[in-house]
């Protein structure tokens, strides 16, 4: 917890999160984020820049360390150098985990050998989910930068390795090819990601809502979707948004 504004959180620079491009995630006023009432703490005039910026935009240089180099070399060998260069936009190694940022049109060309190649053998698709980076601060919100990320966690049971693939798309064109043909387990994961984020997985056998009711409007886990405040079809009940539930007046 930092009391003073603009303090760089330890470890951010090492991890490659560049704060120098601020102003990023916006500003905070006062010591407690209070608005609408008098701040009697004496810190009311304090203005500080939020750190912000969940997406690191640089690429880690090789060698990556650990088994990451072996995996990357095997992947380059399997798909060819030209395809790899076109498919993988950048690679980020952070906190002992590797993330490949993949162009969506090349996703399946990478995933097929990742599962089948003898040197890779990522047999298990642990998880597919989404992250919405809307207004996450930092350069990630630059115009035209896609905000919806589909995140794949792959596990090699043979070599006991894990990697992460990330595909970024915009909310206006949220199409990603489905990996259900390669990993049947992705069926429900992709349905959930469609349900919650509105990412369309082309080629999915039946992309329907899974957790929300079939006729629900909107995608609840997007950042511009409110928490609460949605009318519910039950005795005309409405749940007010959290910030309006109690009024201390």
């Amino acid at each position, binding site marked *: 917890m930092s009391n003073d504004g603009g303090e760089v*959180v330890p470890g951010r620079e090492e991890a490659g999160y560049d704060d120098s491009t601020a102003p990023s995630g916006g500003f905070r006023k006062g010591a407690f984020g209070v608005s609408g009432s008098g701040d009697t703490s004496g810190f009311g005039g304090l203005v500080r820049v939020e750190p912000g910026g969940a997406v690191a935009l640089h690429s880690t240089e090789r060698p990556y360390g650990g088994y990451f180099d072996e995996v990357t070399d095997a992947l380059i060998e399997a798909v060819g150098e030209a395809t790899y260069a076109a498919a993988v936009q950048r690679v980020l190694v952070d906190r002992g985990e590797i993330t490949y940022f993949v162009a969506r049109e090349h996703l399946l060309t990478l995933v097929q050998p990742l599962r089948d190649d003898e040197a890779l053998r990522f047999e298990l698709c642990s998880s597919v989910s989404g992250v919405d980076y809307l207004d996450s601060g930092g350069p990630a919100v630059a115009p035209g930068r896609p905000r919806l990320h589909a995140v794949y966690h792959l596990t090699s049971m043979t070599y006991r390795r894990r990697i992460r693939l990330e595909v970024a798309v915009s909310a206006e064109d949220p199409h990603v090819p489905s990996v259900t043909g390669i990993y*049947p387990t992705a069926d429900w*994961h992709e349905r959930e990601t469609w349900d919650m984020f509105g990412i369309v997985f082309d080629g999915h056998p039946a992309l329907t809502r899974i957790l929300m009711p079939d006729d629900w409007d909107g995608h609840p886990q997007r950042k511009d979707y409110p928490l609460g405040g949605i009318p519910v079809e039950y005795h005309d009940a409405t749940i007010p948004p959290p910030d309006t539930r109690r009024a201390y007046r």
Partner: protein
Amino acid sequence: MSTTYNPSDPYAGSRETTEGRVYTVTGGDWDLTLGADPHGEERLVVNMGPQHPSTHGVLRLVLDLEGETVTKARVVIGYLHTGIEKNTEYRNWVQGTTFVTRMDYLAPLFNEAGYCMAVEKLLGIDIPQRAATIRVLVMELNRIASHLVALATFGMEMGALTGMTNGFREREMVLDLLEEITGLRMNHAYIRPGGLAQDLPEGSVEHIREFLEVMPKRVADFHRLLTGQPIWQNRLKDAGYLDLTGCVALGITGPVLRATGLAWDLRKVEPYLGYDSYDFEVPTADTCDAWGRYLVRMAEVNESLKLIEQALDRLEPGPVMVEDKKIAWPAQLSLGPDGMGNSLDHVRHIMGQSMEALIHHFKLVTEGFRVPAGQVYVPIESPRGELGYHVVSDGSTRPWRVHVRDPSFVNLQATAAMSEGGMIADVIAAIASIDPVMGGVDR
């Protein structure tokens, strides 16, 4: 005597008798629906659930039947969706613990541990040794409780009701221990980012040792009650068959995967919290059916007992929370006669002695600590399989995104593969052997 066809009411034709007019009600529009079936088979669509005692909570199955054979099984979920993942984005990092613990409500301590380990990995901190040992201790207690519910409901759904009463009775012993340690029977919020809410209370170690004395006898009772019983064996054997290839393709982990003969247990293959220094086995079976999954769970209860004993033996005095006061929860919690709360010493300190301590307490509790930006994926072995936490931070005091790869959610996808082509009675055995918890499936 044939019924007169009445064009104004095709389903309830009438005829006159000496007793007055008699109506004959026929099959409603089902007759028309089935009459249109080109195969002319005895096709029947049965809706099972969402409120059905053998569907483990609010799970709905739509089964296509031909006679008693299931030709198609569709699973409908979402009845227990509460938006926990979304809610965590509006609370600070410590409050997240109290949300995630309510997902898989039979394994709350695994949810807490996975979440806290993800936050700690983002923070880049190590927890004290005693905290790690107690985490192992309470998680293995929790694993026993969870498996006992799995076995109890398994018994209930197969008609072995004594299995249920026994299972819940034994589970109550574990819940009593967890209540003594954490203050709550379920939804403990005991494991916190950086360590634990509080140390083991006095006397709890002795009570756990008493439990270790009793439990092996109860496991033996379970074996005497069910394992050797011919009806139990006949109901479980060859029911819900799914082999290794099917499991990996469908992403199935946990006892279902281990019942195919693959000893894939994250405590062994990707050890965390020092599990590699404990002596325990990974039980497997090679039958690929509900029977194998039953045996694996029974054996895992014994392995958890071994782990608990070792954890008790290596408990050394020491802190249970990181030293860093910028992260550690400021309140010193204590168990009072009326429940858990702040210790009086701590209240005296912040209210009467140190204004800085009061400010610090206030800031940390209301605003919380900041977590450096980045994302991690932390998998642990829950009683149902790989429980993964994908946590993203943007550097603020709240999570940017918490996604939970819940094993029940993934494993439930195997329902169709396990039950299509089998008898309708085996659907119940198949689902019971998956042991889904709908709180985790729907989140």
